């Protein structure tokens, strides 16, 4: 009987039902299997805690836990210290070229971080170009491998996570609060410290936690730079690939520990930050502060230096890809050999990358937009559960999800391993939280009474969603789709576990080239990825501009 369900609840329940089926099958089920694997013996038959005692008993894996957390904390702290003054300068100081800085500052979020790590190796690694040049002049410097290099790459690629929300928060501060403080006798400097900073603190912390989670889950950067240093996500992958027993118990243990850590961080973030948004009803952005020429020059140099430095690795990869490599050794001649080699050897992965990214971007939009709508518009237990479930992939490292996929879809009713679909599904699940968040943010901007007007005029909730809500969301849906597309195209951590046979991607080509020392093809692939990432963003930007101007 449909009578039991209030008519206003039918559309959200239908959407939630479909989403639960999808996420249940391709998120919860694989994760349950990872948990299961960690509690079963090598044959996968008997229940045991032995895997945990065995893994945690080994100093090597305990070191992996400590290293990963140390790197995460260090990267988060440095990122925050770097990004908060940057954000303040952009929001409140007269800096020339602000919009250019902002555009450049968001680029590291869409460019693959392991490309940045790889560039660092090519430039400053053991046989790096800069290293050799310096050695030729008798100058030596410390190693970039290990913790220092990893933290440096994280800082340069993840700082926008803190920067962007903090800028927004600084701009949302009601200037009358600062004026109130100053009228009470507080100096401008003290006012920033005692009034402004506490108001933006929740945004800073939220960004910082995002950075921390990203470092925990990242696979590519430590894979390139860690060398012998054990790191969580990398060791889980190595264990899984190396495990010969039917049950991947050791990889399962690392996977579970990784999920628990990220979930804990995420819960802390929700518990302590969700209710600490200080409502400031600023009608307009606060005015720029008047500062001396010295401070202004210093702030300008600082901002430009950070954005530029973060993009140097990407830029140098592009330059290097047009030079001649013989094995890992670079010769400073202009050459298109690397690209010829790439298109010759890796045309199939290249086509796969574009195809997978397109399929996953479509799928993630089809799921993310309705789910984002439901979790924003409806307040019920079902909607909250859906919200939690749709956020969960964020707490699951790609490597771990992929291991769950293999365990779940290797045999039985649904066999996906060995085909292309398993990759597309994994990408889709991984990007769902981002799609839901961005859709939800747009729905927040849409006045509910528009939907009620449509319903009162005779359109059903479903028709109203399609005719009124979707057209209003179109710009946001499109940019969300492009972002999904771009980030899927450079996905590495799940791909490396799931690809098989002819279904490899550009990131796999790079990964293999790194392992075998084929620097030339790796730089060409990286360049191609960079172009493939920037092109749709630039197109979208132009499209949006034109749309806004008309």
């Amino acid at each position, binding site marked *: 009987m449909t*009578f039991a369900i*209030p*008519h*206003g609840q039918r559309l959200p329940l239908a959407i939630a039902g479909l989403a639960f089926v999808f996420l249940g099958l391709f998120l919860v089920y694989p994760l349950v299997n990872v948990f299961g694997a960690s509690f079963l013996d090598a044959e996968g038959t008997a229940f045991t805690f032995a895997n945990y005692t065995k893994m945690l008993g080994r100093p090597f894996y305990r070191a992996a836990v400590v290293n990963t957390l140390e790197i995460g904390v260090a990267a988060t702290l440095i990122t925050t210290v770097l990004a908060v003054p940057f954000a303040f300068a952009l929001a409140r100081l007269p800096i020339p070229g602000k919009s250019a800085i902002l555009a450049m500052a968001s680029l590291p979020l869409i460019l693959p971080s392991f490309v940045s790590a790889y560039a660092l190796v090519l430039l400053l690694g053991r046989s790096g170009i800069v290293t050799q040049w310096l050695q030729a002049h008798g100058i030596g410097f410390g190693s970039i491998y290990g913790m220092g290099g990893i933290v440096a790459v994280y800082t340069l690629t993840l700082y926008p996570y803190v920067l962007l929300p903090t800028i927004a928060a600084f701009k949302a501060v009601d200037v009358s609060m600062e004026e109130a403080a100053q009228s009470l006798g507080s100096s401008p400097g003290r006012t920033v410290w005692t009034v402004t900073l506490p108001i933006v603190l929740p945004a800073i912390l939220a960004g910082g936690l995002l950075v921390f989670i990203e470092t925990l889950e990242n696979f590519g950067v430590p894979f390139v730079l860690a060398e012998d240093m054990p790191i969580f996500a990398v060791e889980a992958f190595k264990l899984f690939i190396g495990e010969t027993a039917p049950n991947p118990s050791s990889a399962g243990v690392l996977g579970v520990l990784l999920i628990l850590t990220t979930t804990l961080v995420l819960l802390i973030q929700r518990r302590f930050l969700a209710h600490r948004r200080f409502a400031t009803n600023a009608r307009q952005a606060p005015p720029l502060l008047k500062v001396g020429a010295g401070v202004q020059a210093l702030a300008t140099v600082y901002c430009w230096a950070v954005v530029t430095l973060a993009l140097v690795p990407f830029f140098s990869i592009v330059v290097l890809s047009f030079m001649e490599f013989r094995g890992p050794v670079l010769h400073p001649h202009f050459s298109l050999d690397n690209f010829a080699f790439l298109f010759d050897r890796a045309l199939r992965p290249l086509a796969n990358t574009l195809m997978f990214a397109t399929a996953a971007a479509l799928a993630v939009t089809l799921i993310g937009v309705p789910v984002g709508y439901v979790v924003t518009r409806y307040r019920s237990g079902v909607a909250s559960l859906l919200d939690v479930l749709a956020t969960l992939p964020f707490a699951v490292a790609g490597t771990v999800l992929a291991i769950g996929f293999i365990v779940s879809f290797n045999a039985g009713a649904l066999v996906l391993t060995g085909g292309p679909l398993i990759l597309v599904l994994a990408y889709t699940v991984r990007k769902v939280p981002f799609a839901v968040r961005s859709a939800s943010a747009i729905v927040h901007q849409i*006045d509910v*009474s*528009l939907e*009620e*007007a*449509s*319903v*009162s*005029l*005779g*359109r*059903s*909730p479903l*028709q*109203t969603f399609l005719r*009124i809500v979707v*057209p*209003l969301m179109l710009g946001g849906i499109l940019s969300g789709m492009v972002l999904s597309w771009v980030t899927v195209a450079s996905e590495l951590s799940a791909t490396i576990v799931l690809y098989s046979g002819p279904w490899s991607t550009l990131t796999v080509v790079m990964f293999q080239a790194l392992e075998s020392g084929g620097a030339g093809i790796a730089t060409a692939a990286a360049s191609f990825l960079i172009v493939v990432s920037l092109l749709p963003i630039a197109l979208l930007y132009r499209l949006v501009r034109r749309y806004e101007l008309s």
Partner: protein
Amino acid sequence: MSGIVIAGASRTFGTVRAVDRVDLTVEQGEFFTLLGPSGCGKTTLLRMIAGFTPLDAGEIRFGERRIDRLPAHVRDIGMVFQNYAVFPTLSVAGNVAYGLKARRVPAAEIGPRVEEALAMVQLAGYGGRQPHELSGGQLQRVAIARALVIRPHVLLFDEPLSNLDARLRVSMRSEIRALQKSLGITAIYVTHDQEEAMSVSDRIALMNHGRLEQVGVPEEIYRKPATRFAAEFMGTTNLVEARALGLAAPVWVSLRPEALRFAEEAPVGWPRLPGAVVALEMLGPITRLDVKLENGSVMKMVLLDAPGQIVREGQVVTLAYDPSRLTVVS
């Protein structure tokens, strides 16, 4: 077709009884207003009729047809929202045609009906405009045209004028009333402004704490308020214990300021009240006075402006009141 019957409608949000066992009958073609302070349940009741808020108990009928379990989109209502809710993605004509298309009205019929509806709200020729080119008042006209073009069983107005400036509010409300009367469509109108309610309504239901405080024609609610709340909400009044006026009954009474005069200008039969002016406010056409009686209670009164009239603070006066305008309130 016949009117709207609401029987025992209730709705609780958490621990708040937003609408508490409301019984109400609105006649066919009537302009009926739900009036009350914010949080009194008037908007919740309107949204129950529209189908956006489910009922916990009770029922709503359009004539014989029970509608409270129907989905909102098949209830045949036209709703006008506080913030207009004009679809920004559609042209003015597209907005007005929206409900007709939903009802699968033949395409050939849509154009003329849209034009007719736009003409009714004095927006003839505006069909091709985009919503962002219109002013707030024009947007509200589009919203009204969009609601009435479908010839709904009932028109619902949710504080439609509160986002407009004061002058436009006054002219729009008489326009809305004239339109409703000429079309003969039943209208239910929500507002917190008692003056607006009195100017447009055939009948008013005054609401407080989710309940109906009093239902009646505007004159009745103003002149014969049943409760203290009604007396105070419907305009300035003197709400005093009867003893303050020298009466024996242990009741509260309401006496409007305009029922008081200076003794020298009052008919002989009116009871006298000696006192002194303690405050005075000259507002142009009228002057408001506070007169402190000898027994200590303060009475508000109003004087129409007249040449040569001089009243000063501290002046000793004798008031007189019209006993027929004294209302006992509960």
